[in-house]
């Protein structure tokens, strides 16, 4: 079955430290992949998207993600985390052909001083 998995439910990092949030996908062909961020009580904001081409994708707010076909992964990274990055992060995938997008279960990021 087509799916997106986020193995970490909750992650805590210190402000200024680097961040990597994991996402694994299971699709027959190369999927379209997205990362979203959700602040409490709000909707989801698109951080970045991968369709094809360059496997390192730059997004907003200083985030980037790398598509690794050999590992079926699309991990989100940020070199230096700010307190305002505390939120829940969702990885999502779509196999194309107008199929619905599948979301991971989310990773809640806590940033400590």
């Amino acid at each position, binding site marked *: 079955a087509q799916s997106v998995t986020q193995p970490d439910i909750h992650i805590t990092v210190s402000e200024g430290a680097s961040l990597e949030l994991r996402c694994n996908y299971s699709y027959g062909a190369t999927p379209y992949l997205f990362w979203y961020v959700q602040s409490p009580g709000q*909707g989801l904001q*698109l951080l970045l998207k991968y369709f094809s081409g360059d496997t390192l994708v730059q997004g907003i707010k200083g985030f980037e993600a790398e598509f690794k076909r050999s590992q079926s992964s699309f991990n989100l990274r940020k070199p230096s985390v700010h307190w305002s990055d505390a939120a829940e992060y969702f990885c999502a995938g779509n196999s194309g052909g107008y199929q619905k997008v599948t979301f991971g*279960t989310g990773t809640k990021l806590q940033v400590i001083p």
Partner: protein
Amino acid sequence: EAGVTQSPTHLIKTRGQQATLRCSPISGHTSVYWYQQALGLGLQFLLWYDEGEERNRGNFPPRFSGRQFPNYSSELNVNALELEDSALYLCASSPGVGRGDNQPQHFGDGTRLSIL
């Protein structure tokens, strides 16, 4: 450009009542999606409309229904409300079928539905 707008922001109902949630997509978008985000359960896909037609439906009972209007706005109706229907209901839009199936969805801020 206005984003996806949802109304109302909050809705309080009692068991057995009916709720109607509304969504206006980004101008030019023809696809509207509905999701339920209950505490601890992540985003659960409810419905997808495009050009007024239901394109896909998630694993929800028939008392969850909706429609899309000619101006592409959409309503989600939930009948016979149950306590477990308490959740944040998110609406998203995208350019639509035939306009790039790889375009990401853009989300509204949701309607918080509370069942007493």
